[in-house]
């Protein structure tokens, strides 16, 4: 019985449906939870590869570059970063698999809020 309960819990856990917007739309969270595992991989926007001249592995450097090169315009949800993530009229990022729509929405909320560091 105990084993069955554990198995049931294991199956149901991934089906929990918390509100994606409950997650913090902060740069600190976005960088660690979304950017690093999906964008800062060794052959992409890492210190080694710096693909497209963009380093996203370091939170401070990444923030500075995204703003300095206008990938993110604070307060503007039509920033270039959004069209890159959506693949609209541009090559889609990340190139191997898109971000979940809820993560893209979290990025949009952060930009709309003025892209606070």
């Amino acid at each position: 019985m105990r084993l069955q309960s554990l198995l049931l819990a294991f199956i149901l856990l991934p089906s929990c449906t918390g509100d994606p917007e409950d997650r913090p739309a902060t740069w600190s969270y976005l960088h660690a939870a979304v950017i690093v595992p999906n964008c800062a991989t060794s052959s992409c926007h890492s210190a080694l590869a710096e693909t497209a001249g963009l380093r996203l592995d370091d939170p401070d450097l990444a923030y500075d570059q995204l703003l300095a090169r206008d990938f993110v315009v604070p307060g503007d949800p039509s920033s270039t970063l959004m069209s890159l993530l959506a693949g609209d009229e541009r090559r889609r990022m990340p190139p191997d698999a898109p971000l979940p729509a809820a993560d893209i929405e979290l990025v949009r909320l952060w930009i709309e809020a003025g892209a606070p560091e």
Partner: protein
Amino acid sequence: MSGRCYLIAFVVLVVATGRADAYPHFQLTTGSSQCSQCHVGPAGGGLLTPWGQDEFGDTIASGGDGSFLHGAITMPKWLQIGGNIRLAALTNDVGSSDGAEIAVFPMQLDLTLRVASGAWSVVGTVGVRGRVRSGAPDTMNNPASEVSSPSLASYVISREHYVMWRPEQTGAYARAGRYAAPYGLRLADHTAYVRRYLGFNLLEETYNLGGGWIGEDWEVHATAFAYDPLQGAARKDFGGAAMFEKQATAKLIVGASGRAGIASNNTRLQAGVHGKLWLEDAKLLFQTEVHGVREMFEGGEGNRWQLAAYSGPVFVPIQGIYTGVGYQAFAQDLKVRSVTRHSGDAWISYFPRAHFEVMLSARAQWVGPAERAYLGLLQLHYAL
């Protein structure tokens, strides 16, 4: 450079330079019960032992001589040379408005050297990281910004370089240097969720001080690690990892792994189990692994539980051919269903002769409720 070229370049970068691993489905299906029987590394991967070279021709491929240069040269016992060359072609569709792309590219070029004296050995691998660094500096948004290109030196990589003390095939060993800490099934595919999202992605081998014990039917490995600051680790963490594996019966292997990593703005604690079951009559090997992760962020906001899983059978219809399907899942936040990824994989490998492999694979990914991605990949592989 056109946007189309950029996309191809990025795609290639993501899949380029696979690691010089063996394939974990050789364990049991070839009659070998431990990875270290065929590999110099105590937990598998990389250079082959003389036994492993013989197995290449005798049980894996449809014949041939698996030794260095097909036996044309006999190397002295203290020196060993190996390597891998992979060429690949792919088609990839991630839902871009300009559709799927096609690319042909060099995937891997690695040379490995091992020098041994008694119980001591030094192993080093030098390679070229995928040809495509042509994600050239992009200043289209703000041409006034200063952007530099990566140096030529950044193309030269070394996945592994370590010193090892290992007096016997079984028993205690210790090693120090850069290598992948033993963990889980150790799939060769670095894009597998159980590797990519658990700290074992491409070029994420850490600097380690590790050791373990190889028993007759069990093995244990422990590793203290620090990220490599030079070769592009996404996660910059320090910590420890451990893995235990036991051959429960002649056809069943079970194992457990754990890893703790502390980075500047988050801490990850993860643990999981893995197993393999070989049904010899049916020529089917079932492989599975499941890992749970607790990730805690600076300030405590957004802390999450994650789940990463891989499972699938491998079929060996005749000697020289391996084919399989797999299911993968990665729940990046168990409270939020809409960010969970699922993947269905299918692949076939053909080893016409020792050293040679042709592999065809396909993957369909479901990313949350709305996003999809499809990949087809052909690899031509020569193992030195």
